[in-house]
């Protein structure tokens, strides 16, 4: 079905612009047209559907769903619900307190907090549109496994004393969970699509433009020399580079796709993208309101090591 965007780019590049096949410029232009039309189409349709699904899972419901479940089941559920529950980093604190107050174990709360930003619909749409469904699925499942695993480890460390003291004193009130009509869900979804697109459209365009230049001008296998599987430092370096790029996941993924076509191995690519989405400096600052710094460091450390590990595994298998 996505072939239609290749055909569209063929027509515009070769017929309207009259560019000749095989040139660097032609390839860059073709790539840019194909990817922008495809990605924006996918973003609008998929985010709309995701938002409709999300309207059924407000965080208050997720919370009551997770409370009192068997520990392992709770980790798995928390990671999975992280994908569909609406989350923005400025809500991280009330969400954290709400979970802890409901008696949800700390580790389970972290499984949710890790999966929610990492496995988000924008990243998945871009991965699906640019890399195909296989890589999108690999990202989804490894992302969930990272969230479950890191959450379990944090839970085992018994770090409750490193949660800010006032958190334990807060008592949460009972709010009615608003029931929405279908009309309201559709309204909500429309607003959600608009809000997300407004935030990311420029990054997406910029990312695809840089990606297009890389596709057109950088020689094949260029990166294989420097960042191929034979360089053991490539994965940790990719992860460290990914951290400051947060909130630009939308702009980073098209560039990464282009880099992968120039020889960046899959494991390094995955590790880099996970670092971009999961580890963000602004979110740590926000979480420092509810977590003492020992716990934040542990959280960052465990997630970093897990992601690096994922990178090595995939580079080793493939």
């Amino acid at each position, binding site marked *: 079905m996505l072939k239609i965007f290749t055909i569209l780019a063929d027509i515009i590049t070769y017929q309207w612009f009259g560019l000749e096949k095989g040139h660097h410029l032609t390839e860059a232009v073709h790539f840019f047209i194909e990817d922008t039309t495809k990605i924006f189409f996918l973003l609008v349709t998929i985010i709309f559907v995701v938002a409709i699904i999300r309207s059924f899972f407000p965080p*208050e419901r997720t919370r009551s769903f997770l409370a009192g479940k068997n520990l392992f089941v709770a980790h798995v559920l928390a990671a999975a619900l992280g994908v569909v529950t609406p*989350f923005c980093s400025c809500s991280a604190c*009330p*969400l954290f307190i709400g979970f802890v107050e409901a008696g949800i174990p700390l580790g389970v709360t972290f499984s949710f907090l890790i999966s929610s930003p990492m496995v988000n619909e924008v990243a998945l749409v871009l991965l699906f549109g640019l890399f195909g469904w296989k890589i999108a699925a690999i990202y989804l499942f490894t992302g969930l496994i990272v969230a479950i695993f890191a959450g379990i480890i944090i839970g085992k460390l018994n770090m409750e004393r490193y949660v800010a003291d006032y958190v334990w004193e807060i008592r*949460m009130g009972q*709010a009615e969970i608003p029931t929405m009509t279908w009309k309201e869900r559709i309204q909500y979804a429309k*607003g959600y699509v608009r809000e997300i697109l407004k935030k990311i459209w420029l990054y997406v365009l910029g990312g695809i433009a840089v990606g297009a230049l890389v596709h057109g001008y950088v020689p094949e296998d260029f990166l294989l020399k420097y960042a191929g599987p034979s360089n053991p430092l490539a994965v940790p370096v990719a992860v460290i580079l990914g951290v400051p790029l947060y909130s630009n996941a939308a702009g980073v993924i098209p560039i990464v796709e282009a880099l992968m076509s120039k020889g960046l191995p899959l494991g390094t690519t995955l590790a880099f993208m996970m670092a971009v989405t999961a580890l963000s400096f602004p979110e740590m600052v926000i979480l420092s309101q509810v977590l003492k710094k020992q716990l934040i460091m542990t959280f960052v450390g465990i997630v970093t090591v897990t992601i690096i590990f994922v990178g090595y595994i995939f580079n080793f298998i493939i």
Partner: protein
Amino acid sequence: MKIEILGPGCPRCQALEANAKEAVKELGLEAEVEKVTEMGKIMAYGVMSTPGIVVDGKVKGSGKLFSVEEIKEMLKG
């Protein structure tokens, strides 16, 4: 009438406050719009996703940047 905007001070909370003030003005109501940033108070309303909006002590919505029109509906109802 008292309108409270729940949120730690993120951009969406500020935008919601502005929308609430606009809604009050358009309806010509006597109402004060107040920001609640203290986490304990936000949680006491049972709200887990910010921003939230409370009218006369009752939570009217959360987790979304409500438009001026939507807030007008809340204030009428």
